[in-house]
């Protein structure tokens, strides 16, 4: 999935003066209708979400976004997105932090270092990781990764680096923000890596060979030519990965444990926007609670759209800078 432009091909219009047949009009109407439908769909999604969140929007306004509360007790109902927004930001940011070096490393490996024989299979394997459904990664997270982290990694990190607030007391249950971060990192690794790989392959070879001819080592060439050239594209890839991490609900809700608080301890439980929605929508017992959950979805939509649009904008700016027309990819 790339953020590439559609290739600029000459427009195929009916020749001027040619007889326009009914069939042409019908096809154009149907096809145009479908395109219009797709556009309307996006607007409809935004509108329906605002509509569904209306009771909470009118009651809480924008204060909802930063309030740290989720009290469903009837008579004392008070809802807010603050803790979940915090959780979304923290998990996505750290997942990106963990995944990026790995993804860039893999991309560099595949574009610069891998022997020809290995290139295609390894590329296929890394992109296959993207095909693993989130519910399976979550299942693996609950039953394999979570317990493993709880018994081995978390206590070790806590005993060694416990003075850093990030590595506080591990929660006794296997669920933790840390597990969620690792799960998210696994899920965004393929996206960031495949976009980066294409970027690195797209660096003009004259630039690379020129650097090598001047006597730089392979790493210096990468650091001096490939990375700066791809800087914009990598930024877009990172933001796309961030957007994907923020939107992931199922795998996160399976491993994160839940809770309405803000703390920095990665080994404790937490919650994110998507995870809260997935956990609570089915049992929402009052209209206000349902509307608040939909409000959470609205915030998530805004964040994802923002990430998406920023990434697109970066891509278009970079394309213009490099004067490259990006068509289909291998």
């Amino acid at each position, binding site marked *: 999935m790339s953020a590439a432009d559609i290739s600029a091909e000459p427009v195929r219009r009916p020749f001027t003066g040619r007889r326009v047949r009914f069939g042409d009009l019908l096809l154009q109407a149907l096809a145009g209708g479908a395109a219009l439908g797709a556009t309307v769909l996006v607007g409809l999604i935004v509108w329906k979400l605002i509509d569904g969140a209306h009771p909470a929007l009118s009651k809480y306004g924008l204060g909802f976004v930063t309030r740290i509360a989720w009290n*469903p007790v009837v008579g004392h109902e008070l809802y807010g997105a603050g803790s979940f927004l915090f959780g979304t930001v923290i998990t996505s940011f750290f997942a990106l932090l963990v995944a990026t070096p790995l993804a860039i490393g893999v991309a560099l490996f595949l574009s610069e270092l891998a022997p020809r024989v290995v290139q295609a299979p390894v590329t296929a394997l890394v992109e296959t990781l993207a095909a693993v459904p989130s519910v399976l990664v979550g299942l693996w997270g609950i039953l394999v990764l979570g317990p493993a982290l709880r018994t081995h990694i978390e206590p070790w990190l806590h005993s060694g680096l416990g003075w850093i607030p990030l590595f506080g007391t591990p929660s006794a*249950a296997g669920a933790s923000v840390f597990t969620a971060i690792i799960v998210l990192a696994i899920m965004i690794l393929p996206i960031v890596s495949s976009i980066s790989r294409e970027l690195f392959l797209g660096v003009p070879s004259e630039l690379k060979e020129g650097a090598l001819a001047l006597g730089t080592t392979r790493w210096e060439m990468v650091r001096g030519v490939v990375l700066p050239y791809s800087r914009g594209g990598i930024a877009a890839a990172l933001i796309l990965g961030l957007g994907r991490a923020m939107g992931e609900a199922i795998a996160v809700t399976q491993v994160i444990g839940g809770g309405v608080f803000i703390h920095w301890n990665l080994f404790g*439980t937490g919650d994110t926007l998507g995870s809260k929605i997935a956990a*609570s929508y089915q*049992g929402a017992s009052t209209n206000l609670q349902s509307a608040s959950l939909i409000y959470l979805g609205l915030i998530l939509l805004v964040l994802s759209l923002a990430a998406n649009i920023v990434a697109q904008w970066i891509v278009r700016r970079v394309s213009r800078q490099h004067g490259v027309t990006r068509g289909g990819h291998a």
Partner: protein
Amino acid sequence: MPKLGTSIRIISAVAAAALLAVVVAGTAGARSDATVSGAGSTFVSPLVAQWQQAVGGALGIELQYSPIGSGGGIAAITSRTVDFGASDAPLTSDQFNACNGCEQIPWALGGTSIMYNLPGVKNLLHMDGATLAKIFMGQITKWSDPAIASLNKGVSLPDTAITIAHRSDNSGTTYNLTDYLSSVSPSWKSQLGVGVAVNWPVGVGAKGSSGVAGVVASTPGAIGYADVAFALQNHLKYFAMKNNSGKFTTPGSRGILAAASSDQKPAADNSLSIVNPPKKFANAYPISTFTYVIVPLQTSKAADLKKLLFWAVTHGQTGTYTAKLRFVPLPKSVLVVDEKAISKIHS
């Protein structure tokens, strides 16, 4: 038209056909029964699961049930997404209004066990309400705390940290527990209150009774709460709770039945409250509860629904279904009210 690799096409077609054939063949024998669908309480779901296996043959009805929590059940029947809802928490007047012509009918009687995971320590440790409230409020954090030790003299309790497992969804079992804790602890009552969900100060949230049982089962030092059937099914230990007469009782048929005798007359809305019975009910288990089915008075599925409910409150209460799960057959006084309520359902 470009050819598409004949071998690939053949292989995928054969694979798809094989999968389809297997699934269809295996399900070909399924009867098309009348379907009655419900959703709600996870507390009663073990019992409903036994009924599901029986009513197909006994009544020709396919009973569908989704254990999504009492809150979800009330919401589902209110929006008529299902034919009946199930909740351990009785409906409030607001919920009755929203449901628009529903009634609630007590259809099972059981007890909430307080489960714990403490390797090497015996089952049925002693616990009382005030201490339990402090534990759930996060004021007592270790098993070696003197409050727990004083209830269990002679038992060596490790220094393990206590992890609370509570419900993350709207739960009638939470209602039952908080109802009990509010009646034994004034500070619980003022700070957290009673509800299908409360602002838990500490602990890990899990979805459904099975979620809570799962957390307790996999976390040494954990304490959680669920219908006793879940504790039994997962081989979890649970506390013997101190009741108002000073006895330590367990969620078994004797304790639950004794608690049920503390409220024999359903209220006008058919609800009963048997939590923390007064001390003259010497053998009562203090965290027992009736659980309700919520039905619309007027529904197109009236005939099947009535058949099902009549069966559930009579046949469905016999030992075949209830004994192993520690549900207790409904008392006669409640049965009489139930039958009257069920006959009110019409199409």
